[in-house]
């Protein structure tokens, strides 16, 4: 899967879960950039992303992400 395809899917999930249609994810995006992205919605996002891409992240992986780009790297590495 290409990086931009992943971004298309991720944007859809983020907009849906966070209920904000203006979200446009980039490599550098972090939770600080999106108000609705809290420690709780973070968990919901992960559950949905895992479903959508049919994979399972490890807790260690998740806790080490610094931004969306690193999350995409994790998805690409599968």
């Amino acid at each position, binding site marked *: 899967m290409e990086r931009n395809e992943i971004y298309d899917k991720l944007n859809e999930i983020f907009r849906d879960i966070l209920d904000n249609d203006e979200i446009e994810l980039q490599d550098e995006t972090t939770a600080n950039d999106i*108000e609705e992205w*809290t*420690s*709780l919605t973070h968990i919901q996002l992960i559950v949905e992303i895992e479903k959508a891409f049919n994979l399972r992240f490890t*807790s*260690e992986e*998740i*806790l*080490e992400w*610094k931004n969306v780009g690193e999350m995409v790297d994790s998805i690409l590495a599968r």
Partner: protein
Amino acid sequence: MVVNSFSFLLFFIVVFTVYYMPGIRQHAVRQNAWLLLTSYFFYSFVAWKMLPILLGVTIVFYWLGAQIKKEMDINNRKKASRYMRIGIVIGIGLLLYFKYLNFFAESVASLFNQIGLSVSWSTLNIILPVGVSFFTFKLISYVVEIKRKKTAPAENFLEFATYISFFPTISSGPIDRPNTFLVQLRNAHLFDYSKAFDGCQQILWGIFTKVVIADNLASVTSIAWSDYQDQSSTFLIFAILLSPIQVYADFDGYTNMAIGVGKILGFDITKNFDHPLLARNVSEYWNRWHISLTSWITDYVFTPLCLKFRDYAYHGIMMAITANLILIGLWHGANWTYAVFGIFHSILFIPIIYSGELGKNRKIKENKYGLPLVKDFFRMILTYIIIGIGHIIFFAKDTYSAFEYIHHIFTGSWEFVRPIGFSTIAFMLLLIVLEWTTRKKEYALQIHKRFTGKRTWMMLAIDYLIIAAIIWFGTFENSQFIYFQF
């Protein structure tokens, strides 16, 4: 040596003078060395027996941090994890030993006694562990953040030791994180007039809420918590209604003083409160109360637990929240009351979680008169009362007394009492009004940005009024901060 004491003032004048002396102020290393020296002096002043332990764990965690970084750099995650775990175990060990050992010994002994075995267990004479809950959390955070690649290790031992022992926050927080604090130790701090002025305003406001509001209310609540059998129902209810303001004015007062002292030295200390009296439910309350502790627990306990339980949806969140709140409760000390306090609050989360409201940070709106919406207003009052009821458990000497307190409310007399003077009532109302009107500021007395540097006569007049109120209405008997004991 409490922050609002004469001895602290003397201590701080010495710290300040040397810190900004020519020859010192241009060099981060010299300023840090001075801060470390004075911090250790400050700490010895309150708990000299703990100083070797503080120094010992600082050395160990500095070394662990370096090892974790080294292993992560060569992608040896297993080894890095092992070093991190060693750090966590040492940290938890410190807390268990200094805060909880007697509690376990007593609980086990009473269990044996209940099943008929007589055990006389002399509790260990453990020294008063001032600040241990606060610096241990900084130490743990340091190793975990390096492992999670969220922060780089300290550049040298001096920097790390100064971060851990920084005197304004060592006794009662706020708990600064390494990624925001260590960088502040890398450059020398030249005296910044507007920042120092801001710090002084914050200290003044802190002293005001502490000695004028908190300490005057403490005379009511402390009688109620300890001597509830002899009080009327009215008095006991008064205490419940006064306690959230008292505890807030006390802890926020301390925090403002600590942050203000930090600002005078050129530091930005993390915030601890965001207008908790405006919380519309307990979830909002915990987002606004003791933020440096709750965010610590969120990052290192709640989020990992939620990830583990993520397949169980709302039940998973409920489990994580319950574990969290019990932990927050027990962080305050070894007593079953703190655990019950945590359970009490987690029960209040049930409707919030299962209705899907949790985490939806709805902004507080105001109506055309600049007041809160009626619905929000009633929710704030209800939350306030619930927090007050929670304090019955929090401040009871044991769980039995908490239930007896409630029992007394229903069986006691209803004679009218007016436990506090009109001036204290007026100051409480002032605090509540300011909580609303200055909710976008860091603290109530903070001067709007455009005034910075230009002291208007109005501000000066307000400052003098506050000082007059402190002298006139303040309580100056040997008062202690509630959070000093944690």
